[in-house]
């Protein structure tokens, strides 16, 4: 195959208004997902500020208890279903086609539909603030019977809108998952065998497979709960012969793997970025790829560890403790592989690298508290306490959100054609790293002391650590300002990006920045070696020199 003459012709400047309407272009949809996700991130973060404001002092004095319960419920729901899943789907949309050399996703219209469901269920969820009685207040788990109490008795209640939104979110994610899995399996560039595929695609494949297996359980469970709430069925109502614990199984059968849906792509990001900024190949590439699927397999058989005090039998407690412990093995393999990648590298402490390093150390901490939580006797004491809240915020914010920031800074030039500012980026990192640790570390001693999660008031002995946590939260709130400034100003007037500003290896870096609508169009390069060939001197694709020369010429003439 000859190099791409069409690239040299450039492409017409596309209007920014395409981001506002229906588009079937994965690169447009990807940015739509990310921008919308950060809009909801600000709402969810604002709710967190109120929560931490309430918890600055022991009594419930800032907001009414009913309001507090609604706010913490909506904080969790928005952050998971409207921030983290959409932002990851945004990255999937941007990265999967460009990394594997596909022109677009396998089902572009399905992709559009999956995206546009997000503002629909997002609006439903936000609308629930304004219905009589207020939004759902039973936590993002929505355990019955408290979630089906419906104090006003209206058909349209905060809880029913919440359930509808979660069910729609499930539908949207299933549509997305079908698309991502199909695209990865069917649309790779010539020569790109599975073991020449970038690790991000491996982790996306693993995560989206989990979505396909797990989401039907949650969506079905949520629909049954909606029936219990609105039409009086008794799937979970004890007085009608139902079992409230049954819901917990449906919920956690998906919602534990959901954590892996979140963290696996972040492992993918770490695996992509550590080689670039260490200038070394990923250590043990094949092993890292396979570890993702071991995590998928194990991730499906650990859910009962969320229910150790819920009235499960001893054999289940022991069995699920063992399976949960085993997760530490493939995860440990990845951590060691990243350390092996860093070792004797030529480390460049760029903004994305700083976010990766910070995310990695936070993740190791979260992994250790995770093993503690898997241990039944410890979990019996700390489950449903702030220890758990601290643990999962280390995973979700400390590791996943940090990884997502790393990815955004790293691939920003590719998809916007502009360079982000390093100074603002580093400021963002420092504030985020200090803020996250100050916010979430004090939650661990609180949990060990016995402070339950979800409380709107607490005994005075918990005040000290809560004040620290709140200060950290406010710092995190501030940390988003340099990020937003950076994104807006560099997108508007940042220096123009070359096709490969980080000197990275990957098909996406053999495209112009930003890439044309159809990526490589019909001139898809043939992949001839594994990714991450830093220092080996091996080209990734056939005629690589020629493609790069064309891109450089094109940039020089622009």
């Amino acid at each position, binding site marked *: 195959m000859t190099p791409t003459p069409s690239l040299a012709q450039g492409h017409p400047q596309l209007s920014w208004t395409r981001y506002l309407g229906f588009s079937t272009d994965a690169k447009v949809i990807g940015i739509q997902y990310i921008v919308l996700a950060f809009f909801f991130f600000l709402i969810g973060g604002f709710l967190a500020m109120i929560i931490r404001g309430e918890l600055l002092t022991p009594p419930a004095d800032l907001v009414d208890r009913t309001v507090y319960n609604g706010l913490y419920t909506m904080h969790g729901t928005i952050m998971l279903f409207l921030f983290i899943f959409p932002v990851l789907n945004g990255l999937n949309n941007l990265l999967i086609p460009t990394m594997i050399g596909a022109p677009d996703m396998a089902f572009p219209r399905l992709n559009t539909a999956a995206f546009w469901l997000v503002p629909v269920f997002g609006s439903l969820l936000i609308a629930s603030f304004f219905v009589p009685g207020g939004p759902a207040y039973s936590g993002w788990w929505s355990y019955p019977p408290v979630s089906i109490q419906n104090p006003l008795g209206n058909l349209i209640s905060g809880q029913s809108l919440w359930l509808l939104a979660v069910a729609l979110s499930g539908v949207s994610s299933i549509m997305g998952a079908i698309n991502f899995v199909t695209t990865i399996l069917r649309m790779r560039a010539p020569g790109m065998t599975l073991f020449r595929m970038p690790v991000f695609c491996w982790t996306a494949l693993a995560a989206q497979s989990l979505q396909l297996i797990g989401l039907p359980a949650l969506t079905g469970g949520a629909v049954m709960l909606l029936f219990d709430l609105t039409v009086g069925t008794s799937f979970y109502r004890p007085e009608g012969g139902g079992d*409230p614990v049954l819901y917990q199984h449906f919920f956690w059968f998906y919602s534990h793997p959901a954590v892996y849906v979140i963290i696996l792509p972040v492992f993918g990001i770490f695996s992509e970025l550590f080689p670039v900024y260490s*200038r*070394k190949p990923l250590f043990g590439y094949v092993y890292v790829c396979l570890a993702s699927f071991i995590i998928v397999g194990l991730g499906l058989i650990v859910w009962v560890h969320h229910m150790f005090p819920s009235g499960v039998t001893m054999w289940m407690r022991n069995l699920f403790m063992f399976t949960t412990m085993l997760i530490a093995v493939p995860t440990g393999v990845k951590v060691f592989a990243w350390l092996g990648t860093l070792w004797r590298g030529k480390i460049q402490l760029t903004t994305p690298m700083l976010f990766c390093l910070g995310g990695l150390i936070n993740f190791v901490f979260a992994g250790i508290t995770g*093993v503690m939580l898997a241990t039944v006797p*410890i979990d019996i004491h700390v*489950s449903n306490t702030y220890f758990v809240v601290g643990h999962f915020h280390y995973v979700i914010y400390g590791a996943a959100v940090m990884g997502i920031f790393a990815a955004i800074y790293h691939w920003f030039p590719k998809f916007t054609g502009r360079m982000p500012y390093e100074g603002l980026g580093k400021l963002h990192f420092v504030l985020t790293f200090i803020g996250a640790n100050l916010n979430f570390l004090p939650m661990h001693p609180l949990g060990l*002391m016995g402070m339950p999660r979800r409380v709107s008031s607490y005994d005075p002995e918990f005040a000290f650590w809560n004040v620290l946590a709140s200060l950290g939260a406010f710092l995190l709130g501030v940390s988003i300002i340099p990020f937003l400034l950076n994104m807006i100003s560099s997108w508007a007037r940042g220096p123009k990006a070359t096709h490969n500003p980080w000197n990275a290896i990957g098909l996406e870096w053999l495209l112009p920045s930003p890439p044309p609508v159809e990526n490589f169009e019909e001139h898809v390069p043939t992949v001839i070696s594994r990714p991450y060939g830093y220092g080996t001197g091996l080209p990734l694709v056939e005629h690589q020199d020629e493609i790069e020369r064309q891109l450089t010429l094109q940039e020089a003439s622009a």
Partner: protein
Amino acid sequence: MTASPSSINRPAVIAVSLWVGVLIVISRWVGLQSYHWFPVQASNAAPLVDGLFSFETTIGTFVFLAVASVMGWVIVRHRAEKYDASDAEPIEGNTKLEIIWTAIPFVLVMAIAVYAMKVNTSLGVLGPMEHIHLADAKEQQGGYPGDRLPSETIEVVARQWSWEFRYPDTGVSSTELHLPLDQPVTFRLVSEDVLHGFYIPAFRLKQDVIPGRAINFNLTPIRVGRYRLRDSQFSGTWFAANQADVVVESVEAYQAWLKQAAGLPLQPGISDAVEEYELRLKQSPTPGWATVKPAPPPQVNVPGSNALPHDA
């Protein structure tokens, strides 16, 4: 990972060994510190849980510090020179290393799991993890050594939002839980509305209370004092205020309390939720969003208190 495995870098080996030694000492120290992060040990389950946690804290600290050391070393020593854009020496993997670092975590977590299972079994013998709905022949006979048969079953009724404790042998009821020191106690946990969590941090024990089920739950207090019982499973508006006090006292004091309580007339017990709800109704407009109305305070012989200073 080094290129020449035949020539051992002696100073490096010594330095790494020394550093590992330092980390082991620090980790053990942190592990011992971890006992102070808990409330007082007021049940016979507490020392087992704290010991297990200390063990895991030691291992966890070591792992964390080891990873942090490698990262710190790399950041300080393996930084690219300014303007050096060249690649490092390509090391793509090392099968031997990969096997080792799969095997070590595997052995480590399995060791932890086996230790934890042993603690589970001890806790099971002590009582707290068995349930009435799974009763087998052994359990029906008590399942305990003859001299440690639970003397009495205390019924715990969880409501939105109050805790009521009933002592069937004497007919006493209270919203403050009194327990005799060093005596195994059996609770029968029931809920009249939603899920609640029966959680006494000083005892390190927790059990969800599930509507439609009666759950048997056993424990043995080992320290005199006043402790908090907290609702640990979100139960609605006044979830945070659904707390009761647990008073552990000598057998004599306990018997005296029961005897005195049996003579007292029934009166409304403690329910902070009811008090707050009444205050809320007086405000106009009613603050906040919709709420379930609290159940009336239980009628009990002894309301007790949940506002006195507590040990944990």
